[in-house]
């Protein structure tokens, strides 16, 4: 995995990028996002199986944009997130040097079209564990699912880690912050948690790149990633569209087909 770090060093030293965004060793066996801006900080970069977080969450932050052009170590999920962000006009071509890492191979891309072609080569596969959990959920009946989610969501304390770790949740003023009118209650009581997670799922349906970071970020371990990944899979089944595969916006809920099939509208 030295290749990606080597390439990152070259880019920084040649001044092509102002910073390198990759992974570094963290507390215990954890890995953490790491910004290397001078040569000294480069040697902390690591790249191994434990590096899973979607670094695309940083590319839309004002502080990171102020740094100038950044080289990003991009796992497949990060690549898809960056492409979706470009489709939603949050990033311009050339603002990032994307070091696409796929099973060890490194490819440097810096435009949406290049990213789109690169992503077209490999099919997006849902990991087995999430697939199984989604199947378990599907198998439950309505009462069981309600009980399951009520038990899980009762532990939510609305720390918003799931929202803030998601690369697609880049809005400075989120609907949760909207208080005129206060659509979703701020307090983390029963209805406040339920509506927050419902609205978050709806906002990610058709936009989620299925990286699973929201589930990992939850301090109390609520499997919230099942909601958003489930919604994304639903959008794929219903409309055949997937987030993060097109340079041009291809968002299921802002387009339509006159013959969309459904069986529940009377």
């Amino acid at each position, binding site marked *: 995995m030295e290749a990606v770090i080597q390439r990152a060093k070259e880019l920084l030293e040649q001044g092509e990028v102002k910073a390198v965004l990759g992974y570094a060793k963290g507390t215990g066996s954890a890995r953490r996002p790491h910004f290397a801006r001078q040569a000294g900080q480069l040697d902390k970069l690591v790249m191994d199986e434990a590096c899973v977080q979607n670094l695309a969450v940083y590319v839309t932050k004002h502080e990171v944009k102020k740094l100038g052009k950044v080289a990003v170590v991009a796992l497949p999920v990060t690549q898809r997130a960056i492409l979706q962000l470009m489709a939603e006009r949050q990033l311009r071509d050339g603002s990032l040097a994307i070091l696409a890492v796929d099973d060890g191979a490194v490819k440097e891309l810096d435009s949406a079209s290049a990213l789109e072609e690169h992503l077209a080569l490999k099919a997006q596969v849902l990991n087995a564990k999430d697939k199984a959990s989604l199947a378990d959920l599907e198998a*439950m009946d309505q009462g069981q*699912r309600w009980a399951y989610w*009520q038990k899980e969501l009762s532990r939510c304390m609305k720390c918003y880690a799931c929202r803030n770790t998601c690369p697609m949740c880049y809005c400075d003023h989120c609907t949760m912050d909207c208080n005129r009118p206060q659509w979703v209650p701020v307090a983390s009581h*029963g209805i406040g948690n339920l509506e927050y997670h*419902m609205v978050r799922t709806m906002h990610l*349906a058709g936009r989620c790149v299925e990286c699973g970071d929201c589930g990992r970020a939850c301090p109390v371990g609520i499997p919230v990633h099942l909601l958003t990944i489930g*919604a994304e899979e639903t959008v794929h089944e219903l409309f055949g569209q997937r987030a993060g595969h097109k340079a041009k916006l291809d968002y*299921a809920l802002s387009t339509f087909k006159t013959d969309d099939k*459904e069986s*529940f509208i009377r």
Partner: protein
Amino acid sequence: MRVLRVPCTGRIDYMMVLKALHKGADGVIVSGCHPNDCHYTSGNYHARRRWMVFKKMMEVMGVDMRRITFSWVSAAEGARWAQLVNEVTDQVRALGPYTEFRQVIGAGIE
């Protein structure tokens, strides 16, 4: 049954349905013109997609979707609207108050 008037199904935000349930409604009807007859051309096409995703999400979270009815009724179909409303009110009365949801509203407050 109380009515909330909006210009088009395209305007109906799923958060309105959530607010209705939050305020204690036991059943919700979401209705508007038929696809292809939308006075605003494509409002109901967008609404249909939104409803398809919203319904699946609500089912995944275990909400009793028998209480939420989606239906295309045009302004000219007075009789059909009356029949739909009667049917749905009977169906929701049979299901009884949505206590399962109501318990959540007060929960979690010390």
